[in-house]
């Protein structure tokens, strides 16, 4: 440890990105590169009777056209549910499903060629609305074509019926969320190239280069040994780039056919159709409590609108229930979640996968219970808090737990006790708390290998290169690993280079999802750095003829206890070590402890080596004339174990609150009954500008996780969860209305205010 960890300071790697020297995927331009475009289906559900590309192929500048028949293999992120084709093979399942793809000299020619492709569609009955999917099983969007069900999960822990029957208070509530999109500012882009030796290289805006590598191999029927996937730095992702997409395969196929590099860059409109955004959900909750506030039972029923394909749906369905048993628990819990296919853009994981929607419902239920029981809502949460070093009712192992400290921090910072309920009509405070995983113990495809690995190469010049498979999205994994290595070895930060997410150069990492980066990469990196450190210490000890345990690392040098004058600069120590041990390098890897999670089917889904905790207090001002909700302040306290890079952690907290508040008050991903997106652009699907954001007060809580790297846990997704219910509960405190449908738009607020006036 040489003092780099835990210091707030420069972002460090922002300058390269800010000034344009970082090459994002679309910034890459290869010689003789062609540009691709996808022809997309205009119907929500249709059989493709005939495709005639002859006119397109005859156009000057058009190099090749492919259709579903050129890539007949199915793919999907979850190995049990591969149900997508790069281009629809026989059936297109949503407006926007790819039907044909063109490679041409430039984007305009490719787009014109797409228009010249003649497709005959037989329009099929469709289920655009969730209700249709539920009531018309004969549409047959499910795997066996007998219904529209994607996945159903029913799990019960304890006797919910008996507990509720014996409760003093039982409340019921229905909630509705219609879906939101990720909207990274960087659109999806992929470039493929085949070299003369037959190696296919794909550069792509992906969060999962390893899974893309596997799926490219399967779909293209090409040995993985002949494929290299490179993920350039990403311009944001938020979960929207965490599975393979059709254009990655079509770029590869067209490059193989034409022998020239091919680039596909998605338009902003296409972004909204590729989607994979947060699932629409309808939730019905029943929660019981005793008079003293002890929660007795939770009974949750959830219908999930999955859109056209499986995506991560199997996991989403589990997560919609499994992640609700922390930080506040009841004596019994049951959930029943069913994900349906609809003829809409496919839904997937967005920051806080599957668990943000039920968290909204549950935290509002807690607020209602507290009111009924005449208890402070924070006190209600305290009385039912899961302890550190315990097991949840659904069998999840809990280690470090900063939940109570998070609650205490937001309570104090917001002036909760003095101000809540006393701000006058129109202004109010609301609280919520939540927990989230730091990666899961279950890899997407079952295997016994490492989930994350880091390789260090040490150069005589005093530079260490970190090769790692993790995906830098802007969240800061590159800087994190550089800092861990620099800190362990006493090197200046600019003497550590990071090469990431290149399947030819870097050892495996499963991807940037499930908030696994800091925990898993960090641990792998620490393991590698400590091996190198041991060699440096051994070499210095031998040279100075002192015992190894007398040598320690400081910034810039290795020193001997009590003999500070004998300091050996780190670059000298590297040379000594290389002379003594041969070329210097190390590999570290991380794998979760075995047997995490419950002993039942699905018991490992949601099982994590460590959980993060968040608490939020939101302060809102509701304009009763216009229905506009102004979120004035959000206090967010988050237990990230140990803040290795505090500037980045605060950035994740701020960004999570921003995104959650946007979902609470104005973002809504709406599809019309015809299957068309209501406004696939950034003017109609409005994301917050600098004028729309609350004052965000982010606070770090450090619980020092026993298994996290230097004590750290996740910070990127957890702090979003509580934002939405905190706003909902604040609106109740302000004007006495309970809004069950997100977002809390002016129309809905006014309607609820009018009903309240009448009631």
């Amino acid at each position, binding site marked *: 440890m040489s003092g780099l960890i835990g210091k*707030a*300071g*420069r*972002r*460090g790697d*922002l*300058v*390269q*990105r*800010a*000034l*344009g*020297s*970082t*090459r*994002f995927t*679309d*910034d890459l*331009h290869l010689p003789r590169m062609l540009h691709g475009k996808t022809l997309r289906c205009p119907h929500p559900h249709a059989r493709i009777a005939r495709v005639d590309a002859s006119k397109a192929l005859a156009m000057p500048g058009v190099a090749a056209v492919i259709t579903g028949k050129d890539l007949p293999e199915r793919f999907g992120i979850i190995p049990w549910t591969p149900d997508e084709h790069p281009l629809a093979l026989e059936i297109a399942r949503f407006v926007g499903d790819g039907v044909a793809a063109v490679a041409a000299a430039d984007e305009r020619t490719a787009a014109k060629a797409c228009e010249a492709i003649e497709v005959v569609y037989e329009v099929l009955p469709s289920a655009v609305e969730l209700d249709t999917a539920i009531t018309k099983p004969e549409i047959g969007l499910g795997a066996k074509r007998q219904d529209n069900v994607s996945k159903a999960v029913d799990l019960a822990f304890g006797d919910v019926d008996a507990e509720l029957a014996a409760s003093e208070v039982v409340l019921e509530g229905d909630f509705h969320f219609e879906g939101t999109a*990720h*909207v*990274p*500012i*960087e*659109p999806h882009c992929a470039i493929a190239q085949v070299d003369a030796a037959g190696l296919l290289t794909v550069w792509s805006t992906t969060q999962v280069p390893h899974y893309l590598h596997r799926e490219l191999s399967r779909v293209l029927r090409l040995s993985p040994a002949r494929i290299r996937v490179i993920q350039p*730095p*990403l*311009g*944001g*992702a*938020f979960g929207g780039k965490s599975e393979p997409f059709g254009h990655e395969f079509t770029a590869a196929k067209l490059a193989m056919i034409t022998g020239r590099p091919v680039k596909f*860059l998605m*338009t*902003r409109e296409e972004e909204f159709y590729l989607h994979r955004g947060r699932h629409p959900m309808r939730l019905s909750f029943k929660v019981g409590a005793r008079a003293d506030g002890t929660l007795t039972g939770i009974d949750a029923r959830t219908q999930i609108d999955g859109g056209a394909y499986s995506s991560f749906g199997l996991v989403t369905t589990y997560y919609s229930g499994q992640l609700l048993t922390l930080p506040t628990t009841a004596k019994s819990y049951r959930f029943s979640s069913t994900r349906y296919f609809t003829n809409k853009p496919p839904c997937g994981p967005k920051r806080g996968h599957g668990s943000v929607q039920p968290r909204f419902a549950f935290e509002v239920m807690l607020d209602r219970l507290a009111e009924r029981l005449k208890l402070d809502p924070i006190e209600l949460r305290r009385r039912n808090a899961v302890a550190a070093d315990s097991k949840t009712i659904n069998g999840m192992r809990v280690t470090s737990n900063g939940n109570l400290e998070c609650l205490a921090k937001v309570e104090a910072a917001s002036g909760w006790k003095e101000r809540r309920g006393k701000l006058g009509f129109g202004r109010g405070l609301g609280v919520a708390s939540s927990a989230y995983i730091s990666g899961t113990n279950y890899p997407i495809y079952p295997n016994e290998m490492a989930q994350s690995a880091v390789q260090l190469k040490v150069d005589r010049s005093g530079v260490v290169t970190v090769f790692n498979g993790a995906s830098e*999205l*802007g*969240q*800061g994994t590159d800087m994190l690993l550089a800092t861990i290595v620099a800190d362990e070895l006493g090197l200046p930060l*600019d003497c550590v280079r990071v090469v990431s997410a290149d399947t030819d150069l870097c050892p495996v990492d499963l991807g940037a999802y499930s908030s696994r980066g800091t925990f898993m990469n960090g641990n792998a990196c620490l393991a590698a750095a400590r091996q190198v450190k041991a060699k440096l210490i051994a070499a210095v000890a031998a040279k100075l003829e002192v015992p190894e345990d007398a040598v320690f690392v400081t910034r810039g040098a290795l020193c001997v206890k009590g003999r500070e004058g004998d300091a050996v600069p780190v670059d000298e120590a590297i040379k000594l070590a290389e002379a003594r041990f041969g070329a210097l390098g190390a590999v570290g890897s991380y794998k979760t402890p075995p047997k995490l999670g419950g002993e039942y089917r699905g018991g490992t889904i949601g099982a994590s080596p460590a959980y993060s905790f968040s608490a939020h207090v939101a302060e809102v001002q509701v304009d009763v004339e216009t229905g506009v909700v102004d979120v004035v302040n959000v206090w967010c306290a988050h237990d990230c174990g140990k803040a290795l890079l505090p*500037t*980045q952690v*605060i*950035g994740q907290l*701020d*960004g999570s*609150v*921003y*995104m959650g508040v946007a979902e609470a008050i104005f973002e809504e991903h709406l599809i019309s009954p015809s299957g068309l997106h209501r406004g696939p*652009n*950034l*003017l109609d699907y409005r*994301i*917050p*500008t*600098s*004028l729309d*954001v609350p*004052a*965000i007060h982010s606070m770090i809580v450090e619980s020092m996780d026993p298994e996290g790297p230097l004590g750290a846990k996740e910070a990127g997704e957890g702090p979003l969860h509580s934002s939405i219910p905190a706003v909902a509960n604040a609106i109740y405190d302000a004007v006495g209305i309970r809004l069950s449908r997100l977002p809390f738009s002016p129309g809905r607020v006014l309607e609820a205010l009018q009903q309240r006036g009448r009631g």
Partner: protein
Amino acid sequence: MPEALVTLSLRVNGDDVRVAVRPSQTLLEVLRVGLELTGTKQGCDKGDCGACTVLLDGEPVLACLTLAVTCEGRVVQTVESLTREDPLVDAFDCHGAGQCGFCTPGMLMTAKGLLAKHGRPSRETIKQAISGNLCRCTGYGPIVEAIAAAGEGRRGKKDEEPLPAPLPSWEAPKP
């Protein structure tokens, strides 16, 4: 019929350049593809996100909505004209005023245009000025603080932290 090419002369980041463009091409396309200045980003190509903001005769404009032929004889400044020693860039780094960095070039150019007009803009003025530049990572708070700090001549809240040293001159040791 392919469009006839037009020769365009303009001054970009201090250099006089002549480039052949099609009349339908945007300034964004000419900068990114023709002149290989990929620091200016394409986020929406519709004028909604602000990622392509550059200075045209000192005024922030959206390069995706500006036809290249309208820039004849004009002065264009892109993010490539800035350096890490620039107090504004340094303040962004010190405040963590960017994460993925994709909106940052456009944000910096908007801020440059603002600071050229208002030496010390208030936070309200800053929020107004950058309201056309969408950021999906930060929640904007650190960006507003960084611009305010640069306007006030402060480097950032971490003034004590030195700017990373430029590449030092170095002599090889004698064998």
